[in-house]
């Protein structure tokens, strides 16, 4: 479904991602691991079209999307839940969800998608009229995921969904991720939390200083000594 081919991305001429290749099949959960500054967020933002790559190709469902704008990528179903959630703080939960489904493909299905999201997150139903900035971190994460689902994601990319959440909420959010996966959604999961990701993802890539250091099935990656090394920066 997603093929990233020798991607090089950077800012101001300095490459941050150096020759990254990865694939993700339809219905798969793939984990993307790595320490701070390994290039995880740069990669996810390149997939969203926020940066033009210096070289390399990105293909989605057989279509070359390398030159597509962020808007076009949202319209074909590549949806990101950004790090830090980035909900619109001064807007109500309902307005945030409506904005999630603002793209041309999803716009007309918003009432139906909204029902689906609210069924998935009953807590959001209770908070519909409340400003998103007043929600707790966990509720904001629910909203950020709900907002992405409003966009009718085909590929859902989650950037650090566990960041700053209490263990209980982390468990809840990963339960939701498992449920979405069971419903057939393809998921790219970016996490610093090694064990959590290895438990939920089928395959993993470990990024180290902009390069793929380790890749493979989760249990293989788990036992690979290079994984720990990539984390500790040795």
């Amino acid at each position, binding site marked *: 479904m997603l093929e990233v081919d020798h991607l090089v991305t950077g800012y101001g001429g300095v490459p941050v991602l150096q020759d990254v290749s990865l694939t993700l099949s339809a219905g798969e959960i793939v984990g993307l691991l790595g320490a701070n500054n390994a290039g995880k967020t740069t990669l996810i933002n390149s997939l969203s079209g926020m940066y033009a790559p210096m070289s390399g190709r990105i293909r989605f469902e057989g279509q070359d999307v390398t030159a597509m704008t962020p*808007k076009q990528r949202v319209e074909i179903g590549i949806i990101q839940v950004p790090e830090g959630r980035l909900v*619109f703080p001064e807007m109500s939960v309902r307005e945030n969800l409506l904005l999630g489904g603002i793209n*041309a493909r999803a716009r007309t299905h918003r009432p139906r998608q909204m029902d689906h999201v609210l069924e998935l997150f009953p807590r959001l139903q209770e908070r519909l009229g409340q400003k998103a900035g007043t929600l707790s971190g966990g509720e904001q994460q629910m909203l950020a995921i709900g907002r992405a689902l409003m966009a009718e994601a085909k590929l859902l990319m989650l950037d650090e969904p566990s960041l700053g959440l209490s263990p209980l909420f982390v468990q809840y959010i990963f339960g939701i991720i498992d449920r979405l996966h069971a419903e057939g959604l393809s998921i790219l999961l970016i996490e610093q939390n090694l064990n959590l990701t290895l438990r939920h993802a089928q395959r993993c890539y470990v990024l180290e200083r902009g390069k793929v250091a380790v890749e493979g099935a989760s249990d293989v990656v788990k036992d690979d000594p290079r994984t720990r090394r990539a984390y500790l920066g040795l």
Partner: protein
Amino acid sequence: MAEFLQALAQGLLIGSTYGLLALGMGLVYGVSGVVNFSHGDFISLGMFLCLALYSALALDPYVSLVITVPLMTVIGGLVYWYLLRPMVGHQFLMVVQLTLGLSLVLQNGILMVFGGQPARTPSVVESKLLILGDVVVRVPHVIAFVVSFAMAIGLYIMLRSTDFGRSIRAVHQNAHAAALMGIDVSRVQTLTFALGIGILAIAAALLLPGTPIQPAQGLRYTVITLIVVALGGMTNFVGIMLGGLIIGLSEAYGTIYLSDTLGMLLPYGIFVLIMLFRPQGLTWSSSR
């Protein structure tokens, strides 16, 4: 007492239009961070377009809106897309210089076409008066008040309950997240700028009847707008309309109770005073 009420009425009526002028600037600043120093010159442009349409086709300024609003909206869109967009997000100072340059171009362009002598554009309602007890108000001022508040309310509803309005607020609150929703941020910024300039075309016609115009007046409107926006808080709707009323009132009281020149200074004095004691603007929380 009659004088007092007279100034109150006049200040409120004109102040509402100042508020409308400032709403346009506030919206543009909110989505793109552009402070447009050619704001007042676009008002000038709107007024002189009305003059041209009167000279050529004998159109009343209110009727000219049918032409000036679409025309100025398109001009605003083109200016943002081709001149401002490449600069936005890089260097704030470059944007300021660009809009200052645009101000000079507009001002001297108008001077070249229309000459420097003050001109007037007549309107059928120009000399009509409304007498309420001791207070005499000019009908154009009443029209300006009604239209300005109607526009402000319309804008507010648009921002609250349409997809375009929500996109504007989304870009304002977090442009990166807005882009991730599939919102074309540059497009929203361009349309908002176009909308802001289109509003100025309306404001120009509202201010025009009975007001002599000359090419160098733009700066005065820019300064008034900046003051109103600073008073209200850049993106606060209620605050901006309130700021417009305060500046309108201080102008009106200044010209009645003080001498002409001193009266014109009063709004600036009041502005400095408010900024000394409430540097965060008039309203408490900024509602976006």
